[in-house]
């Protein structure tokens, strides 16, 4: 296409053509799919059809194509793109290769990513800089496990536009029903993956059907052809209309008279005269100049590399992020994220890594591995470690606060990598879901009437009595008896019950592990507020995970906290099954049910253990009540 562009020697035509070349837009896309779906062949085809294969390359290709599957042109197109010698021997692509072609309308940068199972990390790498993905499917094989895996990773990395290329359609006799079946299945699977556009196109990369022009073999297909579709699809993520983020990359100080801050506008627009805020120090300054070698600018938009000069001496160094006041990034040392693990060495909570986001580099620790997502079924399960090519949801704490955004709202300031502190290998890539401990940005308001005063008015000592145990173990029954007893003696108590809270405060939460963690976190905070108000708080939740119970104890702070373990064997609980939940879980109707397909971590050091199989509820309540005096709960002060 380039080569056939109408170029004449007249300068005006040439200038016009050059203007067109310099003014073209850019589309970065990646191709992914299973082994042998024909990715390399497709890219080779795109290069060939764009007339980018030169004569000398063509000659050597024809030579190398002997004994291989070739199209009418006598060429195995995959030879064009399978770069490394080792790959050529194995016949598979093992790394990300970048290819370039262009048409009259657009320039394209293609990331060719491997389909082999163990190289999921490379796909994530290719996806991280792509606006669009072509998911290839072999028409003879349909939607495979790896198709799902790759689509999930696209979704995780936030690729919003997908083309489903049903390839090798010639090998199924150009059958419409085969194509329609695959499209329907894929659309159903992709429904929850957050793709903004999804186009399905039946193609033969080898023969060229529906690549440039409509295929005579498929009159039943009326949709767009691949290249015209890629030329026109609108993918401009409006980074320019997002809030300003200017990560300072390098302090520009040629002499004592000039001090500028060099960086690339990650999002938004910065103008001369704008007031900007430094994320770390929260100090304001006004932009006085936007410097480039081509002269000063009035404004710089997302993607432009510039140097800002500010109106006052402020302490700014590499890693600082400038934004507009009122639209600042999060600034915290803890956040929740999802990660693709890319190393043979497992990820461990508690281990120290280096974290890099933008130009910020800080020591960081995985504080909690919440669960891993099975990339084939999208099911979530608890995890102690994260292995190569696995995707996990986790919380990370950095040694000092960093500026960031949720990845969903900013693809550049919400992404990070973890680096091994010894080998310096890049271990994993992550996207930030949200910051934790947002409260640290608020100052703590203190009041004169405190917990002691309120408790004294009620003549009691506030406490949190935290029940834990399987569903049907007898927690709520005993809790109810205790509250009645306390009430009869004039104490002010309140039961926070798992089922009840889920009808109100926590009705937005499901039963996945992260939702359960959030469920407990909220209840722990509420219990603490109620204890502050002077109440004896009885919490009756399954609360199956040690970590969350530990968190609840930490949240309670200096409030008396007692963990009551109602230890009733699973068989007994299941036989009782007061709400019929076990039966439903066994039938597979309820997922992540504690004791069935989700673990219960028994407390290691509970204040008291009650035995639901051998004691009656009254006996348990009596034993607990007498213990509570030992904790100093019942005294009138």
């Amino acid at each position, binding site marked *: 296409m380039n080569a056939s562009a109408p170029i004449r020697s007249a300068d005006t035509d040439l200038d016009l053509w050059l203007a067109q070349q*310099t003014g073209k*837009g850019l589309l970065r896309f990646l191709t992914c799919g299973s082994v042998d779906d024909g990715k390399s062949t497709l890219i080779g085809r795109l290069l060939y059809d764009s007339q980018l294969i030169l004569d000398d390359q063509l000659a050597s290709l024809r030579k190398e194509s002997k004994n291989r599957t070739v199209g009418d042109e006598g060429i195995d197109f995959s030879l064009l793109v399978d*770069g490394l010698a*080792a790959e050529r021997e194995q016949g598979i692509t093992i790394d990300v290769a*970048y290819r*370039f072609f262009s048409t009259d309308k657009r320039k394209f940068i293609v990331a060719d990513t491997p389909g082999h199972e163990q190289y999921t990390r490379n796909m994530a790498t290719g996806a991280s800089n792509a606006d669009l993905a072509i998911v290839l499917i072999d028409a003879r094989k349909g939607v495979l496990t790896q198709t799902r895996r790759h689509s999930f990773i696209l979704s995780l990395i936030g690729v919003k536009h997908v083309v489903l290329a049903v390839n090798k359609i010639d090998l199924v006799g150009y059958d419409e029903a085969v194509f329609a079946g695959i499209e329907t299945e894929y659309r159903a699977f992709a429904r929850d993956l957050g793709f903004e556009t999804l186009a399905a196109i039946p193609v033969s990369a080898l023969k060229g059907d529906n690549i440039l022009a409509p295929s005579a073999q498929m009159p039943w297909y009326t949709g767009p052809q691949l290249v015209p579709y890629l030329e026109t699809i609108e993918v*401009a993520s409006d980074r320019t209309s997002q809030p300003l983020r200017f990560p300072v990359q390098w302090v520009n100080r040629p002499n004592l008279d000039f001090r500028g801050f060099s960086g690339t506008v990650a999002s938004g627009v910065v103008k001369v005269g704008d007031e900007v805020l430094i994320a770390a120090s929260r100090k304001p300054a006004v932009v006085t100049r936007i410097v480039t070698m081509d002269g000063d600018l009035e*404004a710089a938009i997302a993607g432009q590399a510039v140097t800002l000069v500010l109106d006052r001496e402020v302490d700014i160094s590499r890693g600082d992020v400038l934004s507009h006041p009122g639209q600042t990034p999060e600034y915290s040392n803890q956040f929740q994220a999802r990660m693709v693990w890319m190393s043979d060495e497992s990820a461990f909570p508690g281990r120290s890594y280096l974290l890099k986001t933008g130009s910020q580099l800080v020591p960081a620790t995985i504080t909690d591995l919440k669960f891993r997502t099975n990339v084939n079924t999208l099911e979530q399960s608890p995890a102690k470690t994260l292995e190569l090519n696995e995707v996990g949801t986790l919380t990370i704490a950095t040694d000092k606060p960093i500026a960031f955004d949720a990845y969903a709202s900013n693809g550049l300031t919400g*992404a990070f990598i973890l680096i091994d502190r010894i080998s*310096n290998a890049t271990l994993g890539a992550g996207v930030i879901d949200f910051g934790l401990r947002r409260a640290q940005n608020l100052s703590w308001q203190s009041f004169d009437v405190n917990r002691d005063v309120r408790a004294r008015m009620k003549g009691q000592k506030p406490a949190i009595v935290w029940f834990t145990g399987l569903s049907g173990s007898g927690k709520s029954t005993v809790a109810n008896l205790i509250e009645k007893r306390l009430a009869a003696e004039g104490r002010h108590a309140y039961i926070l019950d798992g089922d009840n809270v889920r009808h109100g405060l926590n009705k937005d939460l499901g039963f996945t592990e992260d939702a359960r963690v959030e469920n407990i976190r909220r209840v722990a905070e509420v219990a603490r507020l109620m204890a502050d108000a002077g109440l004896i708080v009885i919490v009756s939740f399954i609360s199956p995970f040690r970590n969350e119970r530990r968190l609840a104890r930490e949240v309670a702070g200096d409030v008396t906290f007692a963990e009551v373990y109602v230890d009733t064997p699973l068989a007994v609980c299941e036989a009782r099954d007061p709400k019929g939940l076990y039966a439903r879980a066994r039938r597979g109707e309820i997922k992540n049910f504690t004791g069935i397909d989700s673990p219960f971590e028994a407390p290691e050091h509970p204040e008291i253990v009650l035995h639901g199989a051998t004691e009656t509820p009254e006996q348990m309540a009596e034993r607990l009540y007498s213990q509570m005096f030992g904790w100093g709960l019942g005294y009138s002060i």
Partner: protein
Amino acid sequence: MTDAKSLSHLKALESESIEIFREVAASFERPVMMYSIGKDSSVLLHLARKAFYPSRVPFPILHIDTTWKFREMIAFRDRMARQHDLNLIVHINPDGLKAGINPFDHGSAVHTDVMKTQALRQALNAGRYDAAIGGARRDEEKSRAKERIFSHRNAQHAWDPKNQRPELWRIFNTRLAPGESMRVFPISNWTELDVWTYIYAEGIEIPDLYFARKRPVVERSGTLIMVDDDRFRFEPGETAREEMVRFRTLGCYPLSGGIRSTAADLPSIIMEMQASRTSEREGRLIDSDSVGSMEKKKQEGYF
């Protein structure tokens, strides 16, 4: 630009490259920029100046001289260094010089290995550079297509294609162990056409050798070799004749094949390039030795 919502393709590439340059300056102790005087190096130098303006380029510029470069290249190099206040370092392999290594007696493979590959290694070791910036592009050759922008080299300057660091978003892992180094390629994502259109759009100065002029040449197996100085060895019966030629790649003059051309200015070159049907590296004689030869050279420490 003020009202635009997004950058043009060339402006986007320019910004990306500038960002990479700044990342190098901020992350490494002793960076160096490889300078080969060709068009890609000219673009690289232009981008480096833009990245740090109004500061001067904050690292040295390294030229590996084989003593067989076109004389005009050397004059151009020295003029650029003066004009842009560059810290220019020129290295010639002293062992090769002593041994009198040259392309006529020793052939392209030995000459290139001693005067270029080994010389580069010497210079990098001597300077204890931890980052060497180069002008390689991914569109040049198949094995380059998989090269990282920040490409890790072990203490022997070797490249392990199986153990490359994944490179996501624009977050570059610049960490090194003692003795290790990084090769950095700021114009990885540029194509040859991008380079030419950028030179045109920015008015970047390039050596005159790229433009068709009457030059003294001899023709050897279809390749036009310029007689640049009196060290040239004529075969029996050979004489230089004046022809309108230009060069698509610049290197050692006895190893650089020129093409017959009338393209005497930039637009004509771009037009001619667009119509041509042979790839850029074909003029470089070092690549034609064997399949995958570039890859082998990279593993041995050649760029």
